[in-house]
């Protein structure tokens, strides 16, 4: 980024279908393991689809100082709290060592899961004599039966609020709700806040927890979910000729972004530098991307311009790879146009093949993977890729991880509503 203030990544935290911490998540990705399975959280036998990328054996208690706060935290907030606090520890930050007023929180999150059980009981009790829903009865029933703090579980910005209270972050805070790009945009926008001097440290990321019957039905009705008879582990297959749709997942990831001199002054371990960010909108369709990935091309070009880099400088792309055929094709076309001949030499992979699509969290989870690729010199694979779909003929690092020492990596996301983002990270080597 062209400002005098440079932004580096000094902490990572993740809770995802492959593992509830950074190490198990990353080793799962490199092993090409799938975290998608039969849904366990609710009775999924007979439910369509019966599989999803669930976070397993998650215990929120260890991430909350006060147990009573958990009942006001929706699952997306609980996952975000875990990721945020792990990133904070990973960065070896302490409350005492931070200027609270220059410490902020920016999170991406989406439409919040509705607790059917809460509302269902009230709806049943609100049926009048003729069996129809009676609004007056509902008014009476809800005032006596609705948990008074219920609303706090259902406001998107409670994620940032709860994390800010927990870590005493008194600086700028924001909540980004651009569906599938929210997590990535949170990271990009947080970088801008640090660049312009409004904060020195920001925990940014994304969180989503919509593996619940209502959310799944909604996505199914739009025709975006994969409905097929395969093993759950084989359903998410980005860029494969047999892909039939996305697999819904949940999770959260957080990155500690820090102004370079601030990080240096405290001797922080630096994973990577955030060198470019671009965002753009298709302005084309509510659900589907522009067929040529118009907005994605623009986001990629903007990020490259922001980073003062030529397309050839990019060695790895963490692809969006939703496993929705029309999305995957638009992505491949956008990459070919934006990168020209270099597209054929690029390695790009989609970890959604292993963890599914955690929507508002996906951009942040993938940014973590992108940063880990730079740090370790290993690119995670795109699993379940047997035969490439027509037009998707790029190097997607099929089926097994690859040693890939690169200096510059990009993470791209796009989705619902026509939003597109590109983030560029640069490997940290002591840096000048």
């Amino acid at each position, binding site marked *: 980024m062209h400002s005098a203030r440079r932004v580096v990544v000094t902490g990572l935290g993740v809770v995802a279908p492959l593992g509830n911490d950074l190490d198990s998540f990353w080793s799962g990705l490199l092993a090409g393991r799938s975290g998608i399975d039969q849904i366990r959280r609710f009775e999924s036998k007979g439910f369509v689809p019966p599989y999803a990328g669930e976070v397993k054996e998650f215990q929120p208690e260890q991430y909350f100082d*006060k*147990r*009573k*706060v*958990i*009942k*006001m935290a929706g699952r997306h907030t609980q996952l975000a709290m875990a990721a945020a606090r792990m990133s904070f520890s990973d960065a070896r930050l302490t409350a005492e060592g931070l200027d609270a007023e220059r410490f902020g929180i920016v999170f991406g999150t989406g439409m919040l899961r509705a607790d059917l059980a809460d509302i269902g009981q009230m709806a049943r009790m609100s049926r009048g004599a003729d069996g129809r829903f009676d609004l007056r009865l509902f008014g009476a029933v809800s005032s*006596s*039966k609705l*948990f*008074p*703090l219920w609303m706090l579980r259902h406001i998107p910005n409670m994620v940032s609020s709860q994390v800010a209270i927990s870590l005493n972050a008194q600086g700028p805070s924001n909540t980004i709700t651009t569906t599938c790009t929210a997590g990535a945009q949170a990271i990009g926008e947080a970088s801008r806040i640090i660049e312009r001097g409004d904060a020195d440290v920001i925990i940014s990321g994304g969180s989503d927890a919509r593996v619940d019957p209502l959310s799944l039905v909604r996505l199914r009705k739009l025709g975006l979910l994969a409905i097929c008879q395969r093993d759950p582990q084989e359903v998410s297959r980005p860029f494969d000729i047999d892909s039939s749709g996305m697999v819904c997942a949940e999770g959260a990831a957080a990155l500690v972004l820090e102004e370079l001199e601030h990080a240096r002054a405290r001797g922080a371990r630096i994973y990577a530098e955030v060198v470019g960010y671009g965002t753009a909108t298709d302005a084309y369709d509510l659900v589907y991307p522009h067929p040529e990935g118009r907005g994605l091309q623009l986001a990629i070009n903007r990020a490259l311009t922001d980073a003062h880099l030529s397309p050839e400088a990019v060695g790895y792309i963490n692809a969006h790879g939703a496993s929705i055929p029309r999305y995957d094709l638009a992505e491949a076309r956008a990459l070919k146009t934006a990168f020209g001949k270099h597209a054929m030499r690029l390695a790009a992979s989609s970890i959604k093949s292993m963890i599914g699509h955690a929507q508002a969290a996906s951009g942040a989870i993938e940014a973590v993977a992108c940063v880990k690729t730079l740090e370790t010199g290993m690119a995670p694979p795109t699993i379940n890729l047997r035969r490439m779909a027509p037009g998707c003929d790029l190097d997607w690092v099929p089926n097994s991880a690859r040693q890939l020492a690169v200096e510059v990596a990009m993470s791209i996301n796009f989705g619902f509503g026509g939003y597109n983002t590109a983030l560029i990270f640069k490997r940290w080597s002591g840096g000048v």
Partner: protein
Amino acid sequence: MPTREEISEIVIGSLAETLGIERNRISLDSALVADLQAESIDFLDFIFRLEDAFNIEIDRDELFPNEIARDPNAVQQNLITEEGVEQIRRRLSFTDLPSLRAGMDIKTFMTEMLTVRVVVDYIQSKLNQSTALAG
């Protein structure tokens, strides 16, 4: 109608749920704010649970005299006046407040004297009233 022991059990159970703490950390003498660190948001939850458990309606001011605390005749320079003592005793007539006296800091009263016992006394009197009405 539940016995006093049963009322105490339910009140303590509801409070434990509200505050996310173990029941055995709560006794009748525990002050909600000073001992158990209840915050304003917790009172919303606690009252909701009590209303649900006992099937009663609770006016928050009956139990926690915030309105009196803001009355300039009852509290002057944060200290409870004679008038204030009378008002509080009238409002909280369902319980004994042996150490309440004029000159006491209103904050001390609100944080230290509103104990679990006061809540149990309140619930018992509410249940007595409704039984009397029904009878």
